[in-house]
């Protein structure tokens, strides 16, 4: 009998505690002042810590490729033109509406215009890297959990744990991942996690000569990124896939969406 009583009371305790936790969470979520921006980022309300995202003002990007180059150097990305954590694409639209896209060596060496001047209707550049999706499909499919989302919202790979199956490479809609030819594990942009944890900006952002790219804390309403998203008509890549990217583009043209 006694045993049974203990069981009953511990079960009751369990319900009480879980009820309190659930209620607490609900309360915190109701008090969350940054709900709107988080909804845009597809983020379930988190604690007080940072929740990082990236922003690019495409009107400022001149396609110099410095970001792609700096990324390769900073992160020791293989120099061969098949492996990129960060790259730049050039879009050229002719008067006839033909869209030409290129990214020779990921834009590391800069660009040459492939369309004759007189035929160009518009031309623009798009720097790309991991979108650090809040609902990241790569994290979902990793069979061993080597890919994970850090508490501050950065999608990372534990290279000491990754088995190199390549499922995440297939699952990423943005082709941000590759299998490292030496380590044989998945590799991708870390938002220069080793730098941002020291208060430094990611390499790609540090070297951008026009300040087109910024990063920041989506939980901090005074951060540059939150202001940037509020002040511009930002959009994300492939929003219909519901991966909730945290890489926000201003002035993304329809040809590139």
């Amino acid at each position: 009998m006694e045993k049974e009583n203990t069981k009953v009371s511990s079960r009751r305790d369990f319900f009480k505690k879980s009820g309190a936790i659930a209620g607490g969470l609900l309360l915190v979520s109701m008090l969350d002042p940054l709900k709107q921006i988080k909804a845009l980022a597809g983020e379930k309300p988190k604690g007080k810590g940072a929740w990082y995202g990236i922003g690019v003002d495409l009107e400022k990007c001149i396609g110099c490729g410095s970001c792609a180059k700096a990324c390769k150097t900073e992160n020791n990305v293989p120099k061969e033109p098949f492996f990129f954590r960060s790259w730049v694409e050039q879009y050229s639209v002719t008067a006839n509406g033909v869209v030409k896209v290129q990214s020779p060596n990921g834009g590391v060496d800069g660009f040459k215009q492939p369309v004759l001047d007189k035929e160009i209707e518009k031309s623009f550049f798009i720097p790309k890297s991991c979108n650090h999706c809040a609902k990241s499909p790569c994290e979902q499919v990793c069979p061993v959990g080597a890919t994970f989302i850090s508490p501050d919202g950065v999608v990372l790979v534990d290279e000491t744990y990754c088995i190199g199956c390549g499922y995440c490479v297939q699952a990423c809609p943005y082709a941000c991942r590759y299998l490292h030819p030496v380590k044989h594990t998945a590799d991708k942009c870390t938002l220069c996690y080793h730098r941002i944890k020291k208060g430094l900006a990611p390499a790609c952002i540090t070297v951008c000569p026009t300040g087109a790219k910024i990063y920041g804390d989506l939980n901090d309403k005074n951060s540059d990124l939150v202001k940037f998203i509020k002040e511009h008509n930002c959009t994300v890549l492939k929003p219909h896939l519901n991966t909730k990217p945290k890489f926000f583009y201003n002035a993304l043209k329809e040809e590139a969406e």
Partner: protein
Amino acid sequence: MGNFENLYQALQQVDGFIYPNEIELRWGILIVLYPYITGLVAGAFILASLNRVFNVKALNPIYEISLLASFSFLLVATMPLVAHLGRPDRFYEMLMTPHFTSAMAIFGFVYLWYLMVVLLLEIWFDYRRDIVLWSNEKKGPVKYIYKILTLGVFDISPKAVKWDEKIGYIITVVGIPSAFLLHGYVGFIFGSLKANPWWSSVLMPVVFLFSAMVSGISLVLFLYMVISWIRKQKLDMQCLDTIGKFLFYILIMDFTLEALDQVHRIYVSEESFDIISILMSKLFVTLTIMQVLLGTLVPVGILGFFQFHKPNEIIRKISYFLVSILVLVGIFFMRWNVVIGGQLFSKSFLGFTTYKASFFGAEGFGIAILLMAIPFGILAFMLWLLPPWKKTHE
């Protein structure tokens, strides 16, 4: 450092625009083999269960062959998967620390369930009485192998044998949904990737399942004929005709489902449709010729004709043999078109990369051929150890 010669060649052959990381086609010939072999396992088992659970007596001659073939291929099913890993030395992590939201992680458990609980048990209960008998009759070291295989249970009283029969039946009943799960799951691994419109389809698991049945039945048909010829035994024509009939029906279902998938794509014409229609023309040889024409329509034509008119035995035998090979090749190319085809086009929907596997190397055709040969070796051993033709049938 890796050798990038292939990649530089592929870079020269890029058609249109692809994302810079997409030049390397990540999943090659080995990942084509993975669903192919798993499909043969599931299909062969389902054919065996037709005999046992649905009591299709005409299939008696192939019951044990189906089970042993299924088992032989199952042992090899994970080899291509492990061989293609960047870090095969960490393969065990998938079972030790599985990530439960990953379809690939759960596959390990579905596989183990099928191997340990379904196939091994079913074969053991099916052969238990014979293993006990052989452990008494045989001489030399083989005797001890059979002794070990009895697992210490020597009771072959009619009551015990009846129990074996009963448990075997229950395992087969459990085995049918398990076989469905095994291969439907492989389809889900591809079908659940929303990043890839060529794969992302709710029909994928069902299509994989039916194509698995088709390939497994053809495998058993092929094996039964080859084994009988080697043993110089007369083929049971009623058995062949019955296999042919089932193959015909399931081929039609498989073709209908795949056609439905394509018709849906064409009619709905989503944003990815333009690139997919170019992809289909690029896959003309492997899709239109090998998979659809030779792998499906010709076999359906031959088998369909036999449902209305039965020519003499020799013509039927040759036709069944030909059909089994055509379907096996056709389903191989179906896997090829899914796995390789799905990686040829860029996720930007603006261009294509190419795939050229070399013969040599860790992911070359040489290894693939070797991996395909191993199950036949295992099967030969299993047929020697557990010969179906020496079983006591009441």
